[in-house]
């Protein structure tokens, strides 16, 4: 009656299999979660700098605005350690980050008093809807956003 109930040969085989299966499933779930969340976390990490840069551009000194815009561009353009595993329905946070970087580049160029050719070059490489026809409107909008000389 008190005979062992588990198989006598390799009694730890099923335990090993259970441990291995749990390890595999957990690893897959963690990796999938990290792939999905990295782009969102990158965007969230940018938000304080983005808010500070926006206020500094509108009201701040040129030095502060330039410094914060440069930091924003660096944050927005950094390569993620994990490639983003975007699903079709989720918003594309990588593209949104690039758009933020393009707007910051245009603001920085305006602060630096760059020539129109440089603005057109940024516009040509931008992910935002910027064409030679809309560039002047965009420049006017960004100029209006700065309330101080």
């Amino acid at each position, binding site marked *: 009656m008190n005979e*062992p109930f*588990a198989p006598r040969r390799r009694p730890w085989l099923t335990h090993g299999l259970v441990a291995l299966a749990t390890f595999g499933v957990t690893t897959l779930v963690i990796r999938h979660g990290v792939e999905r969340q990295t782009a969102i976390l990158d965007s969230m990490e940018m938000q304080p700098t983005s*808010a500070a840069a926006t206020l500094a551009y509108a009201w701040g000194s040129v030095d502060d605005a330039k410094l914060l815009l440069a930091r924003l561009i660096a944050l927005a353009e950094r390569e993620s350690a994990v490639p983003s595993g975007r699903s079709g329905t989720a918003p594309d946070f990588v593209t949104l980050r690039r758009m933020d970087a393009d707007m910051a580049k245009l603001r920085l160029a305006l602060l630096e008093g760059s020539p129109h050719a440089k603005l057109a070059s940024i516009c040509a490489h931008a992910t935002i809807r910027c064409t030679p026809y809309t560039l002047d409107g965009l420049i006017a909008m960004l100029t209006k956003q700065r309330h101080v000389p």
Partner: protein
Amino acid sequence: MRHKMAHSRAPESSHVKPTFDQIFRLTGTHLAAGALGFAAAVVLFAPQPRVAHDDPVAKEVLELQTQARAAASATTAAPLARAVAICQKRRWPACDPESVRKMGSPP
């Protein structure tokens, strides 16, 4: 033939009716094995927490924004005074109370 049938039968242990204690132990050890696999995966692959980079300029500007917003909506003078003080410390061009209130107003 009889020899073959004897070989093809299930092992003897499968005919033994397990006691509650045996089932309890076996289930427990399998759950422990599962927990061990889970813990190993978490230790090896869990993402590391992100470390916030200290940015004093952004910190001050964000505090200015918070105080300016409070000044735009509150009747007390303290947030406005604090916002003006930060603005002057950062040497921004427009640090009069009216401009600081405008900073905190929605665009």
